[in-house]
């Protein structure tokens, strides 16, 4: 009995170790294979030029249109989402703090929304666009991605705001501050480190998403100069290039994937860095 239980313990510990290692190795494998395949075609031209004629047959040009398009889209969507997510998150945690039942209900609803796949948002937005008779555009893409990241952003802000102690609110109210002054001048400030991380992660979600933008932002070889022009995005550019039978184009798909991976890794590093840097004004309770 003793012995079998010891063997069992051994067995499962080894199994656990391997499954943990498996996850670490998967990440390495993903990053390595993208770098290995993507690096050969990486060039300055690739990053700084728009697709020229015949680009999709392996001729000259780059993916600047998609890189910029993605950034425009992700920045626009992140800012727009913040405009709604920050007030909502503060409202739930400061104004509605005492109404436990309604805040729990709102949180539950947001959690439900969190799980809705981006393709559903994309299809919904496309339906609305048909109804309104508008064509694909950067603006439509931004709005769709905004809808998609709002629940993610609010819940992520919310987790940060939950840590605010009642004592800080009491102190601020005692100074005669109104609810909005308390929210924006004190609570928001206390939570900036956490918020920056949340914002960067939402930005990462926005820049990496393909399904919500394929119906709404469209695709184009030129760099959009206004909100009502269509815009290319990196994920779609990767997807389209990869489905080409021409080896040069396929190789560029890998390079584009490398670019997107690097952007995502940088975001992750920034998120860590900023949250550490802005910790200093934060009061630990």
């Amino acid at each position, binding site marked *: 009995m003793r012995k079998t239980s010891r063997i069992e313990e051994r067995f*499962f510990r080894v199994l656990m170790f391997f499954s943990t290692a498996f*996850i670490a190795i998967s990440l390495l494998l993903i990053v390595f294979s993208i770098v290995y395949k993507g690096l050969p075609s990486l060039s300055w031209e690739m990053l700084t030029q728009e697709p020229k004629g015949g680009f999709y047959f392996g001729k000259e040009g780059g993916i600047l249109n998609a890189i910029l398009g993605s950034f425009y889209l992700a920045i626009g969507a992140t800012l727009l989402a913040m405009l709604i997510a920050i007030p909502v998150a503060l409202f739930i945690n400061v104004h509605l703090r005492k109404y436990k039942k309604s805040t729990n209900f*709102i949180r539950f609803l947001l959690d439900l929304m969190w799980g809705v796949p981006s393709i559903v948002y994309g299809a919904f937005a496309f*339906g609305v666009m048909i109804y309104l008779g508008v064509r694909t555009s950067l603006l439509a893409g931004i709005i769709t991605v905004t809808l998609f990241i709002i629940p993610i952003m609010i819940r992520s802000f919310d987790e940060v705001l939950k840590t605010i102690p009642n004592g800080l609110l009491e102190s601020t109210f005692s100074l005669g501050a109104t609810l*909005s002054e308390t929210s924006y001048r004190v609570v928001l400030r206390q939570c900036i480190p956490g918020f920056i991380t949340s914002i960067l992660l939402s930005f990462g979600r926005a820049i990496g998403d*393909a399904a919500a933008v394929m119906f709404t932002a469209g695709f184009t070889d030129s760099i959009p100069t206004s909100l009502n022009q269509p815009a290319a995005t990196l994920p779609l550019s990767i997807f389209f290039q990869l489905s080409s039978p021409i080896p040069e184009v396929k190789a560029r798909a890998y390079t584009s994937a490398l670019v997107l991976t690097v952007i995502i890794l940088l975001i992750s590093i920034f998120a860590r860095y900023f949250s550490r840097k802005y910790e200093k004004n934060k009061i630990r309770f």
Partner: protein
Amino acid sequence: MGVLTISRQVRNRLHGSWMLISLIFVVLLPFLLGTGLYIKSANLLSNHSISSLLFSTEWKPISGKFGLWPFILSSLWVTILAVLFAVPICLLTSLHITQYAKRWVLSLMHPIIDILAGIPSVIYGVWGVLIVVPFVADYIAPLFGKTISGYSILAGAIVLAIMIIPFMLNILMEIFKTIPEELTEASLALGATRWQTIKKVILRKAFPGIVSAIGLGLSRAFGETIAVMMVVGNVTRIPYGTLQPGYPLPALIANNYGEMMSIPLYDSALMLAALVLFVIVLFFNFASRMAIVRLEKNL
């Protein structure tokens, strides 16, 4: 002073109203989504019965036949298989990280899980095309004496499994962390080994949480679009094996949006597909979240 106070109060009101408007908008969003998709698919629903749409296997848009069953079935295959792959790995790893792991393993694994969770779907797709599809074609299929391209339900499930691992892992780790340490200590003090404690105390206590983590993983996997679409083959046919190509619901929507305007009712059919997706995902989400709420109440 009086004027200033008034302007402060006005500002407070304005901020408050904007907050309230935003909140109402956010709360209405799911209903908006559902209603919008329903209105768009109503055209089709008025001509066909819902069961004939969901369970018919014939998908011929040109002759007005919109049977979603092959797609629903493909989605189920891919999703369930992916969850089957991911669950044991997530369980073992989350137990390792929360119960056994040393500090350096933690500080290594946390960024790894975060990065895995942040990698965009399309990158997983590229990786799938590069590694998983050839792997299935060259190593798995020959085991069953078959020659295939590798674009298959199995490839989709493997890619999807890797994608949902960080997601489920995070939830499971949260759940294991909520189990009070005193409980573990009490069990250890009774002379149980660490593994016996995990088996008899922790897993039992966390069981509802584990079920809901699986439910959430399932709903996450069900809606995943682009990565799966890139490796699954996209052939409209009832799949009868994991090495066959499949055509999940999200891929159907994503692949056909371009041409759907030219054929009558086609757009309605795709919106219906999106609605089905929405409802299924919400259902899984709802059930799992409810289970988690229960679990938190019991602790």
